[in-house]
């Protein structure tokens, strides 16, 4: 349900230097601006790109966050694969879409 909020946080981090500064200075304070589930908040606190993917974050948002966290391209792809292994299939968002 809060996937929208989670993606909004990452979208703003990707595009707004001010949000990035706040993120670096006090991650907790920035996160309190968004209605995140405990699991989402933990994933952000741990830079857990694999879990963020499973939670439904769109790759077009996630890949920039991963780059910001220092993941090289192939490490980024591997992190998502590890996430699937550890947490099971993508739960929400575009990649979990079941077409009627």
């Amino acid at each position, binding site marked *: 349900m809060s996937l*929208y909020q989670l*993606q*909004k946080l990452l*979208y703003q981090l*990707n*595009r707004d230097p001010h949000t990035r500064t706040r993120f670096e200075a006090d991650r907790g304070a920035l996160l309190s601006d968004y209605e995140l589930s405990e699991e989402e908040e933990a994933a952000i606190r741990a830079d857990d790109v694999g879990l963020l*993917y499973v939670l439904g974050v*769109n*790759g*077009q*948002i*996630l*890949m*920039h966050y991963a*780059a*910001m966290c220092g993941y090289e*391209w192939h490490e*980024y*792809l591997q992190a*998502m*694969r590890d996430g*699937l292994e550890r947490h099971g299939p993508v739960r929400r968002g*575009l*990649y979990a*879409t079941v*077409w009627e």
Partner: protein
Amino acid sequence: MSLVFAGVCSHGPGITGRSEQADPAVRDAFYENFHRMRDAIEATRPDALVVVAAEHFANFFMNNMPSLAIGMAEHYEGPIEDEAWLGIERRRIPGNAALSKRLIERIMRTSDVAYAEEWLFDHGIMVPLHFLTPRYDLPIVPVNINCQGPPLIPLDRTWEFGCALREAIDNVPERIALVGTGGLSHWPATPDSGVINEAWDREFLERWCLGDREALCAFTDEETYREAGQGGFEIRTHVAVAGACAGSKGRVWFYAPIPIFAVGCTIATMEVSEAGLAGNDPSGDER
């Protein structure tokens, strides 16, 4: 004046960002065709380049997502991505607000469109510009079709938007080049990055070259997602260009899957009927 050039190209960030990891032979043939397209555009002496793009949450997000948007600024900036990651330096890109305004007003007669006086270009526009206007001296009119955050505009309405865009272009005095950029099949930024459905891509390009509205608009999003990944939703940019060139035929100058670029790399042009400029190069076929 009118439309003087029309084409489509790929824009994956790997094209510039992961260049050194690609097979040099295929990569260089692809770049060469990008340069051919640059030469073809320059030969038509355009006053502006309209880029129909499929941006990736650089400006537009699910808080307020326009299906269709056009930039209306004197200048833009990009890339929004890390410069080293994308392999393109951040810079200012010229626009033409007055031209944008005239195009938007005309389009609004038949199609709804949002406008934006601020726009940060992401790889979806910067990668094509890197090759097509390397001196960044041609004013750009950015156009966006939401291809990322469903619900997405249906393909037939995308075609209609292309028709409205063409009508607007033909009603301004400037010489306008048009490039659509997106797709084709790909699973960008996911664990399946690098998977490319070449058969699907070639089928799409065949329909695109025929300018066959019905066949182009027959792809359902369900089928596209299954066969061509979420990146396949970006065919909307190609469909819009086909709509803008209704009645014309296209030519594929280059197509090759390049997995590290995460996409079937494509350079194709549409005939522009007026002066017979872009697509009438007899040597234009894929080579």
